[in-house]
């Protein structure tokens, strides 16, 4: 049992905005009162629900490839020294699994959603996740370039496709559906991309990216998945892609969706020289469509490694940087590209990207719709989130930062005109309550009775980045895991898994299709439940 007394509590899920309240915890949940156990005197401190990362890449084939590609970064970055009971690790651009848990918990984040898992390597991803301590986890399955799925959609077999999506989610023991560059990754198998939502995809006769988007959004809704379609739009990173993004949103036909890392999808201009921010248009869409949420995918200046299933984009980035490039193909499901990258304030394109991420966070009015993310590690590393919080809370600091950008940027961005400053309540919404709700994790990001006791306690500090970077206490499931900068405990987290309904004949339907094109046995394909450490299963109720 645990009591936290006297703290100023920010709990947007329950409309509590900085009231002094006591919190009581028993068996990992909030309760109405607790008599025994430790008391943390949080007088004068700030109490938040633990952070929830709606979109990150922390486990699986791609990030693991990135680790192997960047020994030079491991050498210069933070090392977590072994203790008798705690494993060692390395932080940096692509942290090791143990370090990932330490770093997330170290800044008060207690739930993470690994946003891109091919079914074929889901077993691998779960193995890695079980080595990420402290935080709770969920995964999204890549579905928008799976050849079996695309064939079904091309043939107009919607109901079949829906069953197959459900079957895949359960086979991968995942939580929801991710679509990356719909059709574009499939086209990349031919060295091509899919840039037009209404043009047939390479290798198909009728099917277009737009069809995939419409159908997957509807499927996610009808299956009753806790999280709607999680969508990485076509034309990521390309100047002028705002039209594609808005077109994509129109293909949702009113269904809910989460638009991943929208920073990369809000550019105007016809080429790199003309590139400009088009955040006003995109924000306007969100401000008038409460059915969609997004995460910023904000960019921070400095070194990182970019990893995405968006293979064609990564090849372009490799050609632009002339540095290292990793390219993975995952049979007929998806692929992945990996390119180390440095965002520089002196680079006009990078400077625009930096601005666009912040503009979206500031222009989308409702913090329940736009969440803190860097699309780790693509726009920057997750452990730099406190820097973004500082940029959101301090307009003066933004003005200082803007001075370091090229002069030419002024007519390309709108950030200098934005005076909004996030309140603590809005930060708590954007980093915790909002993403938890978007993920359908109602017991997360919520300090209400019966919810998971994931809490972060800060000492008030004028230096916002320092305050959010160094919480005084982090409590996970009622256990103090971080105290004054020390890792006190490294409990195993839960893994959230969805069980959507599918027709019983789906196995027999899939088997011949599978045997036609896969290199492994159908029976060996689904991930066994015994492999999941501490699974928490969500049984989906279908919507008609």
């Amino acid at each position, binding site marked *: 049992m645990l009591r936290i007394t006297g703290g100023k509590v920010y709990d947007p899920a329950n409309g509590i905005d900085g009231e002094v309240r006591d919190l009581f915890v028993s068996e990992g949940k909030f309760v109405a009162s607790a008599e025994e156990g430790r008391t943390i005197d949080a007088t004068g401190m700030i109490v938040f629900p633990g952070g929830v990362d709606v979109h990150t890449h922390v486990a699986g084939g791609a990030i693991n490839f990135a680790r192997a590609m960047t020994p030079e970064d491991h050498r210069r970055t933070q090392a977590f020294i072994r203790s008798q009971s705690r*494993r060692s690790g390395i932080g940096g651009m692509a942290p090791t699994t143990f370090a990932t848990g330490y770093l997330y918990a170290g800044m008060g984040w207690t739930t993470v959603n690994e946003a891109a898992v091919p079914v074929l390597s889901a077993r691998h991803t779960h*193995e890695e996740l079980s080595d990420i301590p402290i935080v709770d986890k969920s995964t999204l399955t890549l579905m928008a370039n799976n050849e079996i799925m695309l064939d079904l959609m091309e043939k107009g077999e919607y109901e079949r496709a829906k069953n197959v999506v459900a079957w895949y989610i359960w086979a991968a023991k995942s939580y929801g559906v991710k679509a990356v560059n719909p059709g574009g990754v499939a086209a990349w198998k031919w060295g091509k991309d899919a840039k037009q939502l209404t043009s047939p995809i390479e290798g198909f006769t009728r099917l277009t990216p737009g069809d995939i988007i419409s159908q997957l959004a509807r499927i996610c809704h009808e299956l009753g998945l806790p999280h709607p379609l999680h969508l990485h739009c076509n034309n990521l990173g390309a100047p002028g892609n705002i039209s594609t993004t808005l077109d994509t949103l129109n293909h949702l036909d009113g269904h809910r969706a989460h638009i991943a890392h929208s920073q990369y999808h809000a550019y105007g201009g016809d080429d790199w020289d003309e590139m400009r921010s088009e955040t006003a248009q995109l924000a306007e869409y969100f401000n008038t469509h409460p059915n969609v949420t997004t995460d910023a995918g904000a960019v921070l200046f400095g070194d990182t490694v970019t990893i995405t299933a968006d293979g064609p984009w990564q090849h372009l980035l490799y050609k632009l940087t002339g540095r290292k490039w990793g390219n993975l193909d995952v049979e007929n499901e998806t692929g992945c590209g990996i390119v180390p990258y440095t965002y520089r304030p002196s680079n006009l394109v990078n400077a625009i990207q930096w601005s666009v991420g912040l503009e979206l966070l500031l222009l989308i009015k409702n913090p329940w719709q736009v969440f803190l993310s860097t699309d780790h590690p693509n726009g920057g590393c997750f452990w730099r989130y406190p820097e973004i919080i500082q940029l959101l809370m301090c307009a003066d600091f933004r003005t200082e930062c803007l001075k370091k950008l090229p002069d030419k940027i002024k007519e390309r961005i709108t950030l200098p005109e934005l005076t909004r400053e996030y309140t603590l309540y809005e930060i708590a919404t954007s980093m915790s309550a909002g993403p938890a709700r978007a993920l359908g994790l109602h017991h997360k990001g919520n300090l209400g009775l019966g919810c998971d006791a994931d809490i972060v306690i800060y000492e008030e500090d004028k230096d916002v980045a320092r305050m959010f970077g160094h919480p005084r206490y982090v409590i996970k499931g009622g256990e103090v895991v971080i105290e004054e900068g020390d890792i006190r405990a490294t409990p195993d987290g839960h893994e959230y898994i969805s069980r959507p309904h599918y027709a019983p004949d789906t196995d027999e339907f899939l088997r011949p299709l599978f045997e036609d094109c896969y290199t492994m046995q159908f029976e060996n394909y689904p991930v066994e439940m015994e492999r999941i450490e501490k699974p928490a299963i969500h049984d989906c109720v279908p919507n008609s």
Partner: protein
Amino acid sequence: MTLTVVNNATCTFCGCVCDDIELHADETRILKAKKACVLGTAWFLNHTVERKYPDALIDGKEATLDEAIEAAATHLHAADMPLVYGMSNTTCEAQRECVALADLLGGLLDSHTSL
């Protein structure tokens, strides 16, 4: 004598790791490895679970498993620069324990890849 059949078994002889093998086994050995290649067949058929070897050896003399585990722990713990090496012909589950062992020991860790 009972005969078991294992479908979709996985062969770990080479890097192909084919997972479509049908194994027929009695209690001590695998009698048939359908779909396996010549190398895989030899691999499956050459292993038996007869007690061909002692549980453990210390300095070449037979020892119990407990004694050997304690001796191993003592030697590894005493070393200033212990090495954990190999990990090819074993499971991922054992490999994870090996990395944890090297981490615990503060030692060297390496696989066949470095050859």
